[in-house]
């Protein structure tokens, strides 16, 4: 690292450091705080209601969706009901889209549509407008789902984006991007993988990860977590917070 450019006036052995991330607040966050405080002041709900609701919304996770898919895979009559009226079918597995907390729902809209994959058709979801997501079923969306990078590149280069997630689909499989740009909320129903014959619903639910239900991964026996490929930086920038040994 002797050739690293030096910044600042001191002649000391001082590498260029990445600036610390400054906690910035957006106009919309300020607006949310203002509206929330006014609503509490007006008595529409209490600060405690808000805390409980936020904690509930953050605690949901994708397990409900995994159970829904596993039940659809194992129970043809349930599948028929779920494809007909997904929100009603969710009640059968204990997910209430309307009043899960008794005083509110983490979903802005309750039009759920299940997109069924086949061996020759693969669905993948984005929201080019913002980050619409079936929250009662899958919990909070992952950070990457909300990025403009994912939202603007997926409609234009879906296969390349999927490849970055480690999912390379053959040309004969139709890739269908679903833009969740209005009030429908979407969930992908993956194809039940080979090697899962005679599995129980609980076993099946374990391999239906969040990414499988967004459409950026496929379920497979033995894979129970969303692990994305990690590419090492080719020209890494070192800074003093890294261990000496790593240089």
């Amino acid at each position: 690292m002797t050739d690293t450019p030096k910044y600042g006036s001191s002649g000391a052995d001082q590498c260029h450091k990445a600036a610390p991330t400054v906690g910035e607040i957006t106009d919309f966050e300020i607006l949310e705080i203002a509206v929330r405080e006014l609503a509490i002041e007006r008595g529409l709900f209490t600060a405690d209601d808000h805390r409980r609701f936020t904690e509930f919304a953050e605690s949901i996770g994708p397990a409900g969706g995994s159970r829904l898919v596993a039940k659809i895979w194992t129970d043809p009559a349930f599948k028929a009901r779920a494809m007909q009226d997904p929100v009603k079918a969710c009640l059968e597995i204990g997910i209430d889209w309307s009043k899960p907390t008794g005083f509110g729902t983490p979903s802005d809209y309750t039009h759920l549509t299940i997109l069924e994959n086949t061996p020759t058709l693969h669905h993948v979801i984005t929201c080019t407008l913002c980050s619409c997501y079936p929250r009662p079923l899958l919990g909070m969306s992952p950070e990457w789902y909300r990025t403009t990078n994912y939202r603007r590149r997926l409609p234009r280069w879906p296969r390349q984006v999927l490849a970055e997630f480690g999912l390379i689909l053959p040309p004969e499989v139709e890739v269908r991007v679903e833009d969740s740009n209005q009030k429908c909320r979407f969930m992908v129903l993956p194809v039940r993988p080979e090697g899962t014959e005679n599995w129980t619903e609980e076993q099946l639910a374990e391999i239906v990860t969040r990414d499988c239900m967004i459409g950026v991964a496929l379920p497979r026996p033995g894979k129970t977590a969303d692990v994305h490929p990690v590419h090492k930086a080719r020209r890494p920038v070192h800074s003093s917070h890294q261990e000496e040994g790593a240089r």
Partner: protein
Amino acid sequence: MKSKTMEKSQNNIGVLEEHPLGVQPRFKVGDRVQLRDMPYFFYTRSQMWARGVVGTIAALTYSDLVPEDEAFNVDGRVEQYYIVRFRQKDVWADYPFEDDTIQTESPERWLEPIS
């Protein structure tokens, strides 16, 4: 329950218009439509990537206010929403895969019939 068959409401530029109560979908699954390229005031959900592209009605979803009205709390016309399917090649001229598709959701007034 309202018994009348017609109602008046404001459209998104504040003009009162008369229209049938309830929703009569104009399109059915399989119909060819083009997403219009219309002006709007400050808010729309009709995405630019789909403007002017010809596609096919893939599903009828629900009926609701249009976002351009709802965003301004205008009690406008409730209308049918559709999922529209486009060929990726029709959206992006140089898209390399023949069969890939992309879908968007749209309220009825943004869709133009194509015969």
